[in-house]
């Protein structure tokens, strides 16, 4: 078995004999851009840093002589011939490339669970192929009509083998799609999904403490990220601080407590903004309580998801506590988008 090492992250991937680098990367979930898959378009051109490979026959216009001399190769046709092939792909933090979105993927509604007064959890299973996505990405759901247009909803679970997708659907009284999902769709109905989209991604190999801040259905992408981080054995401290108006709005409280019990490095904190927290928990907005909870956020990876004012306020707060700009990731929900 040969190895492909992707740099600058240093991640190592096994490469069975006779397989192209492109197909091996794809099987590991890395979507390297490609088009013709036969050495004619040049979309999959990347730099080979060390090792040897059989390039096969490719067109000069897709890989010029100058490209070849500079060490580039077309991965759709390249097969490693040395034990290790080191290629330049992705970023320092091994941020994955995105999967190409799939349109009109038929799913069946397997469950609808009213989680709070306004938020319902929608669970779907694919009737065909499972959609590949990265934790933190979203899907477009709706009928694609003027009455019920496609709207973006973050996927609330980590990728599962059976292709299950779950979403938190906030009912917007003035919206078109969310009331339709709440009232007019039924368990057992078929529904079309376009996905995945978005770049609010977690990097499974990140080596920093993690702080997640969420409110309302902003918990969805955070939940997806958390499950991915924790289940893959992330060892640094992971803290989720969830902001809710009242205790009734504590979304997935039970699952949060379960994760806290199962993973010693995970801490679940919640704060109530319109009700006193008699159970000895936190009260008040995140900007007021976070400085006492985590006074120094230097070197923290931070994920913030919720309404626009919530995200903006949290960003200011974490910056004031020393968070570094390039480690802050934000997902803002616009009312018209969640309609």
């Amino acid at each position: 078995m040969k190895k492909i090492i992707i740099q600058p992250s240093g991640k190592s991937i096994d490469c069975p004999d006779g397989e192209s680098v492109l197909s091996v990367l794809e099987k590991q979930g890395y979507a390297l851009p490609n088009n013709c898959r036969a050495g004619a378009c040049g979309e999959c051109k990347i730099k080979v840093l060390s090792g040897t490979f059989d390039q096969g026959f490719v067109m000069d216009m897709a890989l010029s002589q100058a490209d070849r001399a500079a060490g580039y190769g077309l991965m759709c046709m390249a097969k490693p011939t040395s034990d290790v092939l080191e290629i330049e792909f992705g970023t320092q933090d091994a941020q994955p490339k995105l999967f190409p979105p799939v349109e009109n993927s038929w799913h069946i509604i397997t469950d609808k669970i009213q989680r709070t007064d306004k938020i319902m959890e929608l669970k779907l299973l694919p009737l065909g192929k499972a959609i590949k996505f990265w934790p933190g990405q979203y899907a477009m759901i709706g009928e694609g009509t003027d009455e019920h247009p496609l709207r973006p909803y973050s996927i609330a679970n980590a990728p599962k083998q059976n292709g299950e997708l779950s979403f938190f659907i906030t009912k917007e009284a003035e919206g078109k799609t969310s009331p339709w999902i709440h009232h007019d769709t039924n368990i057992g109905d078929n529904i079309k999904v376009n996905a995945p989209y978005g770049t609010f991604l977690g990097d499974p190999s990140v080596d920093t403490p993690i702080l997640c801040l969420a409110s309302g259905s902003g918990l969805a992408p955070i939940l997806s990220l958390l499950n991915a981080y924790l289940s893959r054995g992330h060892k640094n401290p992971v803290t989720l601080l969830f902001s809710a108006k009242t205790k009734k709005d504590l979304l997935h409280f039970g699952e949060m407590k379960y994760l806290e019990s199962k993973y010693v490095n995970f801490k679940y904190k919640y704060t109530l903004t319109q009700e006193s927290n008699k159970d000895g928990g936190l009260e008040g907005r995140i900007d007021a309580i976070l400085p006492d909870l985590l006074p120094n956020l230097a070197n923290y990876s931070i994920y913030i998801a919720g309404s626009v004012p919530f995200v903006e306020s949290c960003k200011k707060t974490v910056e004031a506590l020393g968070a570094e700009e390039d480690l802050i990731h934000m997902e803002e929900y616009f009312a018209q988008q969640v309609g």
Partner: protein
Amino acid sequence: MSSREKLAGTMELPPPTEQPNVYPLSWVNETMKLQEIWDASQREYWDPAKLPWDTFDVSKYTWEQRESIAYWWTILSVFDASAPPVFASALIKTYELHEEDLVRRCFFSVTRDEQNHEQMCGMAITKLLEHPDPITYTPKTDIGRRLQKNAKWLYYNGGRYWDGYKHAVPKYSLAVLFSSFLMGEIAAATIFHQMSAGCSELVFKEGFKKIGMDEGRHMAIILTLMERDYPKLNDEDKATITKQIRAGYLFLSAVLFEPPLDFWDIPSDFIDNQREGEAFAREAGFHIPEYEAKKENWKNAMLNLKGVLDKYDTEFPAIPEVGITGKEVNDIDMEDIIPVF
């Protein structure tokens, strides 16, 4: 035997269907590389109507510029807008030859993609001229009138070539036709790459990018089929291909370089009118390469093709116009070649 004679009452099983015919149908697949290309074609399919046409404000251009840019699209349309019937004919041939299911599907994808490219030509010309074709349009400027004369001659030549193509398709094997298609695809990829890189108008830039990606896949289809069939080529087919490449150079020079006057039936002021029009288009940010750059690009495209044919031990013709040496091919008779679009 009358075609209306009933055989079912006289025979248990029908006689074999006379070939070539699309029947009997089968779904054999052996060249699995084509499955990946077919999948990519499904994934990458796009809609010209969804390009950012709302950003394309033709009123910012002068009428000279509009007519000149529309003229470039007209030249392109001689080749790209005729491609749907060109590949549809080839698609029918793949059925009649009982080609693999994947080969048929891939030729269908090329036909479908080319339909998009044809639409793109039509939408650009219609928006620029506020008229749906360049021939019945009433030009508004002197250069517009001269370019329309050019356009009429281009379409006249195109019509002759289409007749030639219809006669050639049944005559040649798919392997020989591939050399003609590959030539067209290499030319197209060259044009769209250079136009996408240099154009400032967003809708054109986006369109060129999409079309360039389509052409990459088309090339991959042809290369895959050549890999399958070219090792088995006989000497007669090889000689035809060499001649075909020389003919392809002469056809496609009209869009990639300048139409050779001794091959194309065009008036003596054609080239001057075209160069003047190109200057107006360039002034408007429509990036048509200058003479020397065109020559260099076309030369490199031909060298790419040479690389493919060398691999299959097939002689490359001399292309003295761009300084490529090879087998001298002087007798280009329309009866013996396949027009290249």
